[in-house]
């Protein structure tokens, strides 16, 4: 019951945030200087062509009418036409989202597993050389931009060692598995094509790791401090005193509550992964949503840019609600939907 109430409340709030975001991005794209039609058609296009296109896109009407027009389209799933490709933006997005989603999820799994693992090990062996090595590593991870990791990996694995592919999602000589979900790994699994699966995973490793290392380091730092804090608490001592085996104490009594702070920032980390994918997908020529977004931005393709921002807003809001649900499940002290202070 309370979870249902929490969900309804969050969804209502999300609608308002999305509306606000749409106004924000609309204002940014229409009010700031620069003529989008002129930019789309080029400086040598005749005046009448510019005028026609402007009318076609309702750019000659007052701003609030433009917004209402845009919004009524967006609600129906029509995000306008790309100024550059002249295709419907929603078609483009549907085509490009799965590739980024797959990459970001793979990256998030790497981040969560290794981040928590490294942090837990560092916290358990606090102030030993293991801890120090992990701390130095996590500082390097935190301060290195993911595009630098990407470049270093391309250099190291693509050119020097030549053991991993650095371009695209799939080698050209391997047939693409039939599209079911759009997530190629899952599609390959469904069709039982393990050669393709291996190839896809190989393509995904470098971009996913370059995206994961930063948030992974952050996770490790947080996991370390919570584990080492909880290690000194009385309940661990009493659990040990009852003769509960050390491994059970570590996993059940120490690790589970220590996961809470790391999980609760995972929404932010996921957002960071997708944001950095804007750069990393360019480097690995990954045919995803983020690369589409950057290209739209570089071409001043306003409809596409607005659509990209709105879709990302929707993705992040969903992820944050999911994260809150997981945290509530991990932490029995949190009662979702309950009024504060009661």
């Amino acid at each position, binding site marked *: 019951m309370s979870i249902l109430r929490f969900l309804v409340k969050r969804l209502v709030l999300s609608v308002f945030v999305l509306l606000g*975001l749409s106004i924000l991005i609309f204002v940014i794209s229409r009010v*700031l200087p620069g003529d989008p039609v002129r930019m789309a058609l080029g400086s040598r296009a005749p005046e009448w062509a510019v005028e026609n296109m402007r009318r076609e896109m309702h750019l000659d009407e007052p701003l609030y009418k433009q917004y209402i027009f845009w919004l009524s389209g967006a609600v129906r799933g029509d995000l306008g036409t790309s100024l550059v490709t002249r295709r419907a933006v929603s078609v483009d997005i549907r085509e490009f989202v799965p590739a980024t989603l797959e990459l970001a999820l793979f990256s998030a799994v790497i981040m969560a597993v290794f981040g928590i693992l490294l942090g837990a090990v560092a916290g358990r062996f606090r102030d030993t050389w293991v801890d120090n090595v992990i701390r130095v590593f996590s500082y390097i991870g935190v*301060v290195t931009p993911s595009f*630098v990791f990407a470049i270093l990996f391309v250099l190291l694995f693509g050119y020097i060692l030549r053991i991993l592919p650095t371009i695209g999602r799939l080698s050209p000589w391997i047939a693409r598995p039939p599209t079911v979900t759009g997530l190629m790994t899952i599609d390959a699994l469904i069709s039982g094509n393990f050669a393709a699966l291996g190839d896809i995973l190989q393509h995904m490793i470098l971009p996913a790791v370059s995206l994961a290392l930063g948030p992974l380091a952050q996770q490790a730092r947080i996991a370390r401090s919570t584990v080492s804090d909880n290690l000194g608490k009385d309940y661990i001592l009493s659990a040990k005193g009852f003769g509960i085996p050390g491994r059970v104490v570590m996993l059940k009594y120490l690790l589970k509550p220590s996961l809470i702070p790391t999980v609760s920032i995972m929404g932010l980390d996921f957002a960071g992964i*997708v944001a950095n994918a804007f*750069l990393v997908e360019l480097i690995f020529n990954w045919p995803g949503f983020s690369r589409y977004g950057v290209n739209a931005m570089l071409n001043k393709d306003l409809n596409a840019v607005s659509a990209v921002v709105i879709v990302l807003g929707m993705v*992040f809001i969903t992820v944050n609600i999911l994260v809150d649900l997981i945290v509530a499940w991990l932490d029995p002290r949190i009662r979702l939907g309950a009024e504060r202070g009661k």
Partner: protein
Amino acid sequence: MVRWFRREAFRRRWEAFGKGWYKFSRNPVSVIGLVLVLGVSFVAIFAPYVSPFPSHAERYVNFPEASQEPSTSHLFGTDVFGRDVLSRIFYGFRYSLMMGAVVLSLVVIPGVILGLLAGYYRGTWIDTVIMRITDIFLAVPPLILALAVASVLTPNIFNAMMAVSLMWWPWYTRLVYGLASSLRNEFFVQSAEVIGASRRHILFRELLPNCVSSIFTKMSLDMGWVILIGSSLSFVGLGAQPPTPDLGTMVADGAKYLPDQWWITIFPAFAIMITVLGFNLLGDGFRDLFALEET
């Protein structure tokens, strides 16, 4: 008497500073951070005097010496135009630090004031309006919104600063909101209210001083993040444009010549890392010093 009070207050503050400095200097992490930040700042400020080839920073061509490997005459090698990479990095520090300093100086004051207002008037319409607007800005990562804003502007370093600033204030609003809304129930705020202190006094003399250490720590960490975002904008091509010696632009330009002429890319990339690392360690040092919680 008044003078004695003033002198006494000054003496105590000086003493507190001395104690703080002692604690700070015992922590190797923060000292390394301080050294890095001071080093980078020194090189940036005195770039014309410390860089071996100051004229190589911007537009300069010297093809006979193009694409040379690191050597004693060019420690970090030369790029495809024959410019000394080390000199360009020294000038690049200037743009990175300027990016961080300009963005933070534009962002902190409005962000903090909005956070104080929303926190103090918690539960009223002021809180609702400010914090819901903040939610909108926080719904999408600042890098993406900054890219979107930068994309509609003419790409240059000034517009990149504006784009990042426009997206960065909500983080301060949210930080200060959390602090102020819990502080407002403390006795010292309530007693100030009871004796009829003005709103301005409560906001800026009672609440703000108790938020300063958190704001200060966040600013130090944020210098690093803003520099990172600025270099990301430049890397994509929506920030500083060549021949400006911006570190992100240098990495992007060099990436074209990668496997062979690695030094054009790798050294500017390390320069970004060193700068961000410095501010990060410094921020961690402040956090330990003020005994703040890690978030």
